[in-house]
């Protein structure tokens, strides 16, 4: 069983690696790196979802699937639950984590806000991939107002 900390170390190195290799310093290159990270996350999220036992996958409602993401999946990834889940009951969900482990090492406050997106891309992709396996097409975006808290906005559509 791989220790949980290995994922964090690997993630940090992955972000550094994919970012450093970017020859185009303008926003075009940045977008490409972000989408590569998202794509990696998506594939991993899909694979994780596919490995879950059948009964876990039988969510009757969208909200159950989101709760699973917030509790089980988040706990598996970061050894903690998501701090908040809100919905507008019209297909949009806001998942809030007040101390997102992949951002914690960057300190707190607004000093490194610009750097935050690259540390969220993989996880957004992962949530999207997991939702996809659970039967939902979705759009997941993340925002950071002040480190290390972040919000993911998910709009699953069956």
């Amino acid at each position: 069983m791989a220790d949980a900390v290995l994922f964090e170390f690997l993630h940090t190195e992955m972000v550094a690696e994919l970012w450093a290799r970017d020859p185009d310093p303008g926003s075009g290159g940045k977008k490409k790196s972000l989408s590569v990270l998202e794509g990696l996350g998506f594939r991993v999220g899909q694979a994780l979802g596919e490995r879950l036992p059948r009964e876990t996958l039988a969510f009757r409602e969208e909200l159950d699937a989101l709760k699973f993401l917030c509790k089980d999946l988040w706990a598996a990834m970061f050894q903690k639950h998501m701090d908040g889940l809100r919905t507008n009951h019209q297909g949009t969900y806001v998942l809030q984590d007040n101390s997102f482990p992949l951002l914690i090492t960057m300190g707190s406050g607004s000093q490194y806000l610009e750097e935050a997106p690259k540390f969220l891309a993989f996880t957004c992709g992962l949530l999207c991939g997991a939702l996809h396996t659970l039967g939902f097409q979705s759009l997941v975006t993340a925002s950071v107002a002040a480190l290390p808290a972040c919000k993911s906005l998910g709009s699953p559509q069956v």
Partner: protein
Amino acid sequence: MSRQANRGTESKKMSSELFTLTYGALVTQLCKDYENDEDVNKQLDRMGYNIGVRLIEDFLARSNVGRCHDFRETADVIAKVAFKMYLGITPSITNWSPAGDEFSLILENNPLVDFVELPDSHSSLIYSNLLCGVLRGALEMVQMAVEAKFVQDTLKGDGVTEIRMRFIRRIEDNLPAGEE
């Protein structure tokens, strides 16, 4: 078995798979980005090195092992403490060189390669090369220059996975000029 207990095991399994699946996705991406396996191998080694130089702090903080007095002690700590802590396996230590500066770590199973198959087009890829970089980087931080390389790999049809570790030299601390 209560549902709670099932959920706990499920969580641990997912956590472990998260790392191996992420690693697999990374290797796949590197294979797309680089034209040949040798370059991918180098990247994996370099990334492993960067991870190793930081992982050693986590290891020292959590394991409470003291300073190793020789390479044999180092080998024991690597196999019985470090591998166990991070990958949940205990490789065996064999094939010591007469001078005591080389040994092999034998991994009966390598958690990184669960569900992995190497396509023929990537026969030179050292899939788990990150591990060699990690070992090299971590040991450098405790003043040991070593070389680590795979000499057997179950992905390539060998019966076991074998990493050969070679002690190169002790890294002396560099004193600033003027101090003795």
